[in-house]
């Protein structure tokens, strides 16, 4: 745990963002009072140990990050802190006072406010009402004083630094706006500890910046903030200190300056996860090529080619045409002109059916709504795109379907007891593996993935990268569309950079990181 001598000694690509911005490193908030202290918290559900002795200390005016892979016990810990679950063992100290048998209302009364991923807001009510209503309920009000509601809302927004129209119905706000409303609501309800569960998942980079600004403002007011997050670059941007959990166990805790990429990865996954750069053996065998691909208003004159073993990265800002090219190649919005060659043969793509016929697979950006049937089993999802292969006359060959699904479960090491549970029950990383399995079961020759590791934790991320590398080596063309630069630099031996619908640069990924 004493690696503080070499805080930035990272050689891996994970360190891109880390060296510039580390706001928490010299905060020196040792003198700040400890607001929340947990000692040896244990909790099990029917024999399953969700928490096996967790220690945690959060100080006033500190931004504390709780990190860990999916299933590490983060949510259970939040529920213990907010009084939803009473721990089986261990002590909870709030403001120097030991609290026993805490109920949710006790936690709220002591100033603990949790903002869950769905924000628990009311889309049909106005901004002002959303901010003020919870407090009015708490005060057992019988009547509504609209003037007071507006005053409370204005006060909350002023404290947080949010600028929203108080009379706007919440459903008309973007996700980031709803989140701001949830934060304002927590503040007007006298939050002393604000817990945010993966607050950046649905935000754009600009919105994340605004969120950090707001949280830093609250921190200056002495509010303790705990963020659940597992995105390393974001943790470096915002956190003062860090606690890492793994499998319900407390692994390490400390100032953010005591961590480097290697230690973070090791503590998160328990493995020395140093991903190497992808560097395939050179080959002259062309797998895929597009010439002068154009779709007016989306992208123009796009040309690139890839050889056997290549993984091609497609990047650029939102709106640069990177996602649109993926959708065009899969026939969702077919290209207007240009030529497409797959394994040396010219192909025509006018529809999704054309793309599937030509053995092109596509993992969409929003897998929850576009790529998966959440309520159906892993098996149903796995064979969803290849079900025609299992028809024997009028009936389906159930045995073959099961065998294929079970094979992918094993090959992609999807963490599930069997192929029967619904996909809804899987973590983000495993759900993404099911999407990949679905397409691999169609035996694609070209596989396009849009944001393949969004919302996936580091361990599963590395596994997905390994899978993709394996596929590329087998001669399947892999295109990764992403704005996650470290991910692209590490996994793609060829990168196409888009800007305003045009190709700006095609590189062989031997360039300096900074020039990106």
């Amino acid at each position: 745990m004493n690696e503080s001598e070499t805080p930035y000694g990272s050689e891996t690509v994970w360190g891109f963002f880390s060296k510039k911005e580390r706001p928490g490193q010299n905060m020196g908030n040792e003198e700040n009072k400890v607001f929340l202290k947990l000692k040896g918290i244990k909790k099990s559900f029917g024999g399953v140990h969700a928490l096996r002795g967790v220690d945690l200390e959060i100080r006033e005016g500190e931004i504390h990050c709780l990190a860990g892979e999916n299933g590490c016990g983060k949510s259970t810990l939040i529920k213990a802190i907010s009084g939803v679950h009473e721990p089986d063992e261990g002590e909870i100290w709030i403001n120097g006072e030991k609290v026993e048998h805490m109920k949710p209302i006790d936690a709220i009364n002591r100033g603990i406010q949790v903002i869950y991923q769905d924000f628990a807001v009311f889309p049909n009510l106005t901004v002002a009402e959303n901010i003020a209503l919870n407090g009015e309920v708490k005060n057992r009000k019988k009547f509504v004083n609209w003037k007071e509601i507006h005053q409370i809302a204005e006060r909350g927004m002023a404290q947080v630094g949010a600028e929203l129209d108080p009379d706007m119905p919440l459903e008309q706000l973007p996700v980031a706006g709803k989140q701001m409303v949830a934060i304002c609501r927590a503040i007007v309800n006298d939050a002393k500890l604000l817990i945010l569960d993966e607050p950046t998942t649905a935000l754009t980079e600009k919105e994340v910046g605004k969120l950090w600004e707001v949280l830093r403002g609250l921190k200056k007011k002495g509010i303790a903030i705990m963020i659940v997050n597992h995105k390393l670059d974001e943790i470096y941007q915002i956190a003062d200190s860090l606690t890492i959990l793994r499998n319900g166990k407390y692994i390490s805790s400390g100032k953010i300056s005591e961590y480097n990429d290697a230690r973070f990865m090791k503590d998160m996954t328990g493995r020395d996860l140093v991903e190497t750069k992808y560097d395939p053996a050179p080959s002259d065998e062309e797998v895929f090529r597009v010439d002068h691909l154009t779709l007016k208003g989306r992208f123009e004159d796009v040309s690139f080619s890839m050889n056997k073993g290549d993984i091609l990265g497609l990047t650029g800002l939102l709106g640069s045409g990177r996602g649109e090219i993926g959708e065009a190649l899969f026939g969702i919005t077919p290209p207007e002109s240009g030529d497409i060659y797959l394994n040396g043969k010219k192909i025509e793509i006018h529809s999704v059916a054309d793309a599937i016929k030509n053995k092109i697979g596509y993992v969409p950006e929003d897998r929850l709504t576009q790529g998966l049937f959440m309520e159906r089993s892993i098996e149903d999802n796995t064979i969803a795109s290849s079900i025609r292969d299992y028809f024997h006359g009028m009936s389906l060959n159930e045995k073959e379907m099961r065998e294929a699904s079970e094979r992918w479960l094993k090959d992609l090491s999807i963490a599930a007891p069997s192929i029967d549970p619904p996909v809804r029950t899987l973590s983000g990383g495993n759900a993404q593996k099911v999407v990949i399995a679905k397409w691999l079961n169609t035996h694609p020759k070209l596989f396009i993935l849009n944001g393949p590791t969004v919302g996936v934790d580091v361990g599963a991320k590395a596994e997905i990268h390994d899978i993709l590398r394996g596929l590329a080596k087998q001669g399947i063309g892999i295109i990764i569309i992403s704005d996650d630069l470290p991910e692209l630099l590490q996994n793609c031996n060829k990168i196409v950079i888009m800007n305003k619908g045009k190709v700006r640069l095609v590189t062989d990924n031997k360039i300096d990181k900074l020039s990106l």
Partner: protein
Amino acid sequence: MNSKKKHAWLTSNQMILVYIIAVFSLIVGIRQPAFWDFATVLNTMRAAIFTMCFALCEMIVIISGGIDVSFPAIGCVAMYVPMYIINRVAPIDNAWFAFGLAVLIGLAFGLLNGFLVAILNLPPLIATLATSSIASGGVVTILGTREFTVLPSSLQAIYNTNLITYTSPKTGFQYVLNVLVLVPIIVCLLIAWMLKYTMLGRGLYVIGGNKTAARVAGFNVKKLQFAAYVWSGVFVGVAAMIYNILMHSATTSALMGDEMITIAACVIGGVRITGGHGGVGGVVLSVILITLVQNNLNMLGIPTSWQRFVVGIVLLLGTIITSWQTKRSMKMSQA
């Protein structure tokens, strides 16, 4: 910002209803100048009483995130049972008895609906469909299917009490407006106030918007659901007795089938079927529109047999406008 707000107001659901009512009135008025008479107002109000009362029941339930298709059956029982007792068991000639028993019956079925939806967590459509069958089937089995067309003198006295008597100078006909029209008017005002200025009212919107968040915020979701269904049952009891008095008819099936036009009236009035939206103002306008269309089509020379068809078209248009408004509201969040 201000002009944007003004624009939003001018194209709001309620204002669009006002435009449609104005255009329809204008067309009818041009074809039939007799339309421009105070009598039209009285006729429309009289004809709108029942739909308005039923819509006040349904609206509350839909705002809370539910739906109630049982109120016509509950209403039938609530007017049939007191009239059966008065006519065939004991001639209790007392208006308080008639209304009181109707309310009690409505309360009982409202509690049943509340229990099925809030406690057993049944889907509201199925639960209230079951209640409807139980109420309707039960009363027919036990008390048979008669029609009572003679009111006891206490109720007849209410029937004879008019709020307004108006003799049209154009036609010389006399038009009256019964005192019972005050019931929906007063209840409209009370409900509008309740929805805006009490935590009970806000609670109904809150549970219609997001039940989980409502629970987290400390609202008693079950209690609020109970309140909605109990209100619907109780007030439909009152409305059914009003129907009995004004129509001189109590049967076990008189109101059956009214649920669809009532739900439609709510939806056209801006009460989103998914819950959490809408209010009294829109529903009042929508009831006025539907009543105007139903009452005045013959003035346009459209045969009575076409009435249902045209009402259907109005419903369709109204619903399209509402759904278009909803989409527009959602789209603004993208911008």
